[in-house]
């Protein structure tokens, strides 16, 4: 639930930013249409600058709440998830004695007896 609210806040901040961008563009279009687009007048209106800054702050809050829980980074926490089977499997030294002992495979005649 908290993450959903965070997502909403972040989304509204993005909408606010988009609105500020659009308002800036219309402002400059209006100036150009009126023929007043000299360099000295070409400033972003103060209220739009404020809007962008507010959007940034709101977005920071929203994205912080929205982020998923942090994962553990310590070696010890990773070791807690492991089992003995995987730590001591020694697969390269895998043996097949159990197949002969269970009678599933006949020992071949050229094999010496094992202990």
């Amino acid at each position, binding site marked *: 639930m908290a993450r959903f609210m965070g997502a909403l806040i972040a989304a509204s901040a993005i909408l606010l930013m988009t609105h500020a961008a659009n308002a800036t563009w219309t402002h400059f279009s209006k100036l150009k249409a009126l023929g007043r687009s000299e360099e000295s007048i070409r400033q972003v209106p103060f209220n739009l600058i404020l809007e962008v800054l507010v959007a940034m702050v709101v977005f920071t809050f929203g994205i912080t709440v929205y982020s998923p829980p942090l994962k553990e980074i310590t*070696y*010890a*926490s990773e*070791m*807690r*998830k*492991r*089992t*003995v*089977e*995987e*730590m*001591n*499997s*020694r*697969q*390269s*030294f*895998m*043996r*097949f*004695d159990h*197949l*002969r002992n*269970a009678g*599933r*495979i*006949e*020992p*071949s005649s*050229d*094999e*010496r*007896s*094992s*202990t």
Partner: protein
Amino acid sequence: MATVNVASPWAKPISTAGALKTLEVLRARHVRASEQVLENADFLFASNLDVPKKLGDDYWAFLEQLTMAAMDLGRGPLADDCILRLEERFPDSPRVQVLQGMRREAAGKLQEALKIYDLILDVEEANAGIWKRRVAVYRQLGETQLAAEDLCEYLDTFYTDVEGWLELADLYSTVKDYTHALQALSHAMVLAPQNPFYVLQFAETAATNEEYALALKMYLRTAEMVESDEDGGFLHDANEVARQAWLGVKTCTTWLLAPPAAAVRTTRVVDAEGALTQPPSAGELQALDELAGERIAGGNLPDQ
């Protein structure tokens, strides 16, 4: 993301995506869970999924995994089929050679496999996979002395192979030569310093060898490594390392506080300073005894 259980009992595969994920985790973690691998693989083949296309490059690693699992459970024809495919794709590959050798071993033809390994190793001495198989064949033939010598030579060449040191420790433990097993395990600990499992194994081997002061030290080291501040202590772990460590501490303190009269032995393994491990004083032992009791009862939570 769902966690994959690699201990038994495991969850039966219910979807191809789940089966693929399980197989991937088992490959990455080098678990010898052959029944689980075969169950998941059978599930994949029974579904109408185009496995080679879906896995892409991982298909060959999957085949290797499947081959080893099939041989482990005696499913010869499946293993042969997989090896054939791998041979076609990777002719003259050392990894495929290892699988072919293992197939002969699994069929019981140990002397034949041994001859082939000797031939290969005469030509290329540093073929690690084949060398390890030769050690395994010596063990299967019951030639423990030869296996130990060969494995020591292998480890002189490939010192950083933790698996090899663990195998050597197992070899020595099987013949009850615990001193040499402890030495092998100490090399494994040096190579994997963050791993509590090997420290626990060292402690248990020392305890089996009745070196209770050394065992106590290593059990405490294990407990220190797995200490957790989170809720539930070790009850949420996938393994029993913390519980075994504290049970081990309890066993050692009990013995050290009241050793049976005829069995007082000093430890034989020297530590880094060249001194024998001395047990702590009686007061400290008593305190450790109580602490171990609390930890076992309370699930390893601090300040219980």
